[in-house]
């Protein structure tokens, strides 16, 4: 039987479209979406699709990849400060690691994150790359 179908399916909107949420009490925007606002402790939210644009806040290179990601190693991961506020951690793509610079403009792209083995689900989601802006 295929595994991990429901957990991956539940995350499809945030993974494919970078949908977070916005606090209806104070207007703070969150990604990933939260159930309690970290700014005001509010508990009412609306979905909020982020633009996917931001700048590179920090980055490093993963050489010892976790299970399921071995084929990609070594690969860069980064923290991206989205234009709307939140910091997002993500794999970086379409870039030579020597060319990464803190502060460079980044954009979200949808890429294959990993595969659940030879027979299982292909998992897609957001990565970031330099936008060239």
């Amino acid at each position, binding site marked *: 039987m295929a595994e991990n179908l429901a957990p991956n399916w539940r995350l*499809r*909107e945030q993974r*494919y*479209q970078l949908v977070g949420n916005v606090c209806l009490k104070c207007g703070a925007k969150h990604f990933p979406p939260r159930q309690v606002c970290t700014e005001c402790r509010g508990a009412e939210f609306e979905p909020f*699709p982020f633009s996917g644009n931001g700048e590179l806040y920090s980055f490093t290179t993963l050489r010892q990849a976790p299970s399921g990601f071995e*084929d*990609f190693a070594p690969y860069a991961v980064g923290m991206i400060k989205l234009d709307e506020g939140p910091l997002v951690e993500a*794999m970086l*793509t*379409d870039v*030579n690691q020597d060319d990464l610079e803190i502060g460079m403009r980044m954009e979200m*792209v*949808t*890429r*294959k*994150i990993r595969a659940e083995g030879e027979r299982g689900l*292909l998992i*897609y989601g957001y*990565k970031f790359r330099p936008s*060239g802006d």
Partner: protein
Amino acid sequence: MKPKRDVGIVGYGAYVPRYRIKASEIARVWGGAEEGMPIEEKAVPGLDEDTITMSVEAARNAMARAQINAQVLRAVWVGSESHPYAVKPSSTVVAEALGASGATLAADWQFACKAGTEAMQAAIALVGSEMADYALAIGMDTAQGRPHDALEYTAGAGGAAYVMGPAENALAVLEGSYSYVTDTPDFFRRTHQYYPEHGNRFTGEPAYFAHTLQATRNFMERMNFTPRDFQWAIFHQPNAKFPLQASAQLGFTRDQIVPGLLVNRIGNTYAGASLIGMTNVLDNAKPGDRILLVSFGSGAGSDVFSYVVTDKIVERRDLAKRTAWYLARRELIDYALYARFRNKLVMN
């Protein structure tokens, strides 16, 4: 063929991966001749790319130019011969990524290299019949070529997406289309096989040339067109030689063909090949230009379309990355990296 309701291209978008391998590098590995390559170099998908991810990016570019809400799309159709799943649609992932899921059709199309234009024909019919206002048609491939086979030199990666909609909102209005198919077994891939088989020279005269020439001649005759009526023409491009030869036989000049001829730089992108040639032409066309689009798919058949560019292209074509942006971002790799990226290494 022409729908009762006038239809056109409302948005379009290209995608090409950033990696390239030179045909001469492939020849170096297999001891091939250094001269007479079918193309200069081809695009290679990265480890995290496939027909789904590439379709998503091309579709986002098309939607940016279309300037419509994804929820008004009533079809998301992906034509390819490299769908990541044998069973499970690529199109539902693309629809979900665009925010178009829910009240929409979604399906994957298969007709070798003309799967994308077949989806375009269907999208035209869906909008033209007023069953829908907008439909998305994509042709995209990460083409497979067996190591040491002639196809390995040309099997590239890339494609394009088109939002079809009412003519009054179009960047290019459809004048008519035509399709011509026969059962011609020039190229195929059986179930569970990783690489396709082909008929070498049989892919030429009885397949590519017979179908593209017949389809184009029939279309031009029915529409009362001559080659001089077109500013630009795009032909399916499995290599650099076939489209130049076919277009010359039909009476087109090299100047009409070159802007839509990308095969030397990205390889044969199969279901995406003619459609991405068209995006490069649209990126540079002027309002009033008439464009001929001719696809070919093994098995075999050819779709032909005539579009006239409208004034709207001027303000909308720079709302997304141009085809030239994807052609210019180019990271050259050697055969070893190519083998890794294309999963050709045996890990034991």
